[in-house]
């Protein structure tokens, strides 16, 4: 889904002016060609060409303001498009001719009566030229639309990566970890080194997560383990991590750090505020044609107040999971966050991925 772009109805006043000028330029060219080929004063052909051309353009551009258009092309969909273009050319031609007749004080639709044949040939020429100009605008509009979409997509992805990074490198977590590290250096240097190694692995994984689109499930579990080991030094016995990754699932490809926001969420809202702490279980299962990943804690649990938009990065973290799933798997993946169904309390987050994503 491309992000909505501010000028959805891709026609703006400046566009009108530009279109009108371009059309007038074409008209001038046609007028000159006709004037060279026909007898009589040159300005007659010019006036008719401008009158007809601008009438067609006016009908075509302004009627697009009234009907619903596809923002990507700037035109209505299906038969409406052909009806709009055909109608605009026919009525624009009649209107333009009438204007020309008025300008030269001729009886209305003079040519229709005197020479239906040349009238028809003018009409056909009109259709050909209008189709050409319409196509020109259509192609140009589509190009500009593409460029705008591309720019917006780039902006979005840069913003998302930054926010993802912020949510993963949560400053509170980082500084608390560093505070622990600072103490451990004096107290227990080997343990300090171990903690530093885990921090390095966590930082490296976080910073490179945006580059790889998929990595093995075993790598995903290893990253979660690094993070939980860091948290374990801080939380001690209040955090009891459990991992359950069946060997036959170890190589399944998953998006990197998909589980990270879920694990962070379980700690931040489940175990950290819970005085006794609890277990945090990360598991993977194959269920039919789905790979099911679960993050479950026995902590404080969700409150009834479901609309609780936390001001910190949590909400972003969870919506990020949903967005990544939608981008990578469309409707074939699902994410659910709810109270754990067994009697132990806490929260259960479930991610369902298609077993074979390309099927």
């Amino acid at each position, binding site marked *: 889904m491309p992000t909505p772009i501010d000028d959805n109805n891709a026609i703006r006043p400046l566009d009108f002016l530009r279109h009108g000028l371009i059309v007038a330029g074409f008209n001038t060219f046609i007028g000159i060609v006709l004037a060279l080929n026909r007898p009589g004063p040159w300005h007659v052909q010019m006036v008719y060409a401008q009158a007809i051309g601008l009438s067609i353009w006016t009908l075509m551009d302004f009627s697009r303001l009234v009907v619903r258009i596809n923002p990507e092309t700037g035109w209505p969909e299906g038969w409406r498009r052909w009806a709009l273009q055909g109608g605009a050319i026919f009525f624009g031609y009649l209107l333009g001719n009438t204007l020309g007749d008025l300008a030269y004080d001729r009886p209305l639709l003079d040519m229709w009566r005197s020479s239906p044949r040349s009238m028809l040939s003018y009409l056909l020429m009109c259709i050909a030229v209008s189709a050409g100009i319409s196509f020109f605008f259509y192609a140009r509009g589509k190009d500009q639309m593409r460029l705008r979409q591309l720019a917006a997509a780039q902006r979005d992805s840069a913003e998302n990566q930054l926010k993802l990074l912020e949510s993963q490198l949560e400053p*509170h977590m980082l500084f608390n970890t560093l505070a*622990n590290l600072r103490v451990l250096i004096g107290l227990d240097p080997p343990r300090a080194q171990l903690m530093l190694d885990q921090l390095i692995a966590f930082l490296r994984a976080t910073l490179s997560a945006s580059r790889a689109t998929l990595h093995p499930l075993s790598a995903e579990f290893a990253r979660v383990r690094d993070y939980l080991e860091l948290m374990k030094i801080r939380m*001690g016995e209040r955090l009891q991590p459990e991992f359950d990754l069946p060997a036959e699932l170890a190589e399944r490809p998953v998006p990197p750090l998909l589980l990270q926001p879920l694990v962070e969420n379980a700690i931040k809202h489940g175990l*950290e505020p819970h*005085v006794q702490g609890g277990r945090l279980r990360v598991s993977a299962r194959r269920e039919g044609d789905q790979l099911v990943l679960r993050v479950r804690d026995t902590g404080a649990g969700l409150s009834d107040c479901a609309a609780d938009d936390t001001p910190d990065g949590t909400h972003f973290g969870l919506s990020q999971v949903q967005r990544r799933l939608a981008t990578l798997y469309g409707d074939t993946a699902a994410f659910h966050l709810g109270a754990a169904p067994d009697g132990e309390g806490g929260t259960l987050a479930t991610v369902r991925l298609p077993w074979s994503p390309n099927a």
Partner: protein
Amino acid sequence: MNATALIAEDEPLLAANLKAELQSAWPGLQVVASATHGEAAVQQALTLRPQVLFLDIRMPGLTGLEAAQAIVEEWPDDGSPLPVVVFVTAYDEYALQAFDHAAIDYVLKPVQPARLAQTCERVQAALGQRTPANGDAAIDSALSQLRQLLGSGVSAAPAAPQLTVIQAAVGPAIHMVPVAEVLYFEAADKYVRVVTAQREYLVRISLRELLPQLDMQRFWQIHRGTVVRSDAIATALRDEAGKITLTLRGHADKLGVSRLYAHIFKPM
């Protein structure tokens, strides 16, 4: 200068480290208690009555701010001075602005010895000013600092859509209780008691989550666990000890106002 202190910090290594750093920065300071969560901090502070509190902001149970509020509200009225509060935090930039504003001291983790020494000097100065003669003034300034901190939105969630009805489960039915008919809300563990003139309901939401959804012009917080509709208050009575009690229109309940919110009630 000799003084007693309490440290509330959920991470054991950091608690031990803060204690060690304090010992070298202020040898006369005796750490009488270490609490690992908010409730324990409140309980120990009220039992041991230390002169200085070092409270971590993010703790299980109550946050440091909530613990400070509870301690100030429950602190006995026997003339013993309120403790000096120092908050400890790893990172919370908008809370820090509020602290600067409220002139309450804070320490950043990892603890830097030089910065901690500064904090100790300030705490000593604050304790030194507390002679029996200006005890009331000291309490007033401590209260106003905490009030500013609590009112500055440090702990408040961003503006949520305002509630107009409370959906309260009563057996199998859900009662729709218009917020305008609520006399007062009272926190009861993980629930909130919703009291109207006719009856009362229990809703499974914490007062902390409910507060941002109320119109604070209409509903006044008078205690950390009580929020009352202002036009339901009939009288505010101050007893000899200075404690304020509210009576309500159309209800026999009496509500106590904590010293933190006593300043709301004064004649025009």
